[in-house]
């Protein structure tokens, strides 16, 4: 069975593709700005990754992270870029969900919603 794609579907796919690319560049941009800020201010502070201690709350907990970003903490800014990166696949699934709503495909509206909900549970 061949599936013919309407122009609206093709347009949505184009939007999806552009959003993915844009989202990737945005996250890289944010992170690189944070890194630049870090190097300028703090380049000679030492870090050690050989022992696992777990990230401090202001880099792993969202409200605390937001607070640190407003304070201009460079590591928090890099982490924001990473957070934006993680949002990309979630946005991808949301776009698919919208596509299914438009096509009135109830089965896949349910399935995509399940995936979306799982992703939201993970990130929030």
């Amino acid at each position: 069975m061949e599936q013919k794609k309407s122009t609206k579907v093709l347009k949505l796919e184009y939007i999806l593709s552009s959003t993915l690319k844009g989202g990737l560049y945005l996250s890289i941009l944010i992170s690189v700005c944070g890194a630049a800020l870090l190097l300028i201010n703090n380049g000679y502070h030492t870090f050690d990754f050989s022992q696992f201690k777990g990230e401090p709350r202001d880099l792993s907990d969202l409200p605390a992270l937001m607070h640190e970003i407003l304070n201009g903490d460079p590591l928090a800014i890099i982490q924001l870029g990473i957070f934006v990166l993680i949002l990309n696949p979630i946005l991808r699934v949301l776009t698919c969900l919208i596509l299914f709503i438009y096509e009135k495909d109830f089965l896949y509206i349910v399935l995509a919603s399940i995936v979306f909900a799982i992703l939201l549970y993970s990130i929030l």
Partner: protein
Amino acid sequence: MTAHEILIFIFIGSLFAGFLGSLSGLGGGLIIVPLLVLFLHVDIHYAIGASLIAVIATSTGASAAYVKEGFTNIRAGIFLETATTIGAITGVAIGSHLSAPLLSLIFGIVLLCTSISSFYTKHTVDSKPSHDKLAAFFKLNSSYPSKTGNIPYEVKNLPAGYLVMFGAGTLAGILGIGSGALKVIALDNIMGFPFKVSTTTSNFMIGVTAAASAGLYLHMGYIDPLLSLPVMLGVITGSIIGARLLPHIQTQHLRIMFGCLVMFIALQLIYKGIIGTI
């Protein structure tokens, strides 16, 4: 190490990892974590977090290209993502309770199996219509574009494929990898999707699975920004370079050379895991 040193060394190491992963077809995650752990002395938990970020980045970049081409079966992706994301959460729940040596051991075994299996490639040539009822119910049969017009295909074995996807998601959650190879096996060998549809759809799913794991690990403090950024940039750059170089290199020699190198890395991980010195 200072911030400068970290950014530079990790970037170069990840460049190599991305390059190696792209040429050997083994994917980023399986190479990044061992490289970070064995050669850059990063704790495996941080390495897993950083690897997931790199996997999301490469998957997003590749997907942007593939979606336009029309090979990706989005319904198959979403349907199977219910399995992989639940698997990912399960994997994170399990993996976060495992010690570093045990993680190293498991990783080494998975890496060993993957490298051995990469010497044997079997693609499904059987393209007879399957008339599978579940496949029809879930609307997974579709077509893909080619020079002669759209070629239709039908798939089968949904329960088996679904189960393997759950396993792939769990592995991704425990080890911080994309599990692309396993996903392609499920799509191609088990369910019968055409090869190009399998690889593009798998790529579509890899990012989602990694995001499900990464979100949880972020809250658990596994993801360090200073480590993840150069890993992400290095792997993307390395795999682009690798992809550009690939057509110019003899695949047979390459396969064998990289297969041996990866096996050596796998054995090192297993050894360290057993000794418990990681």
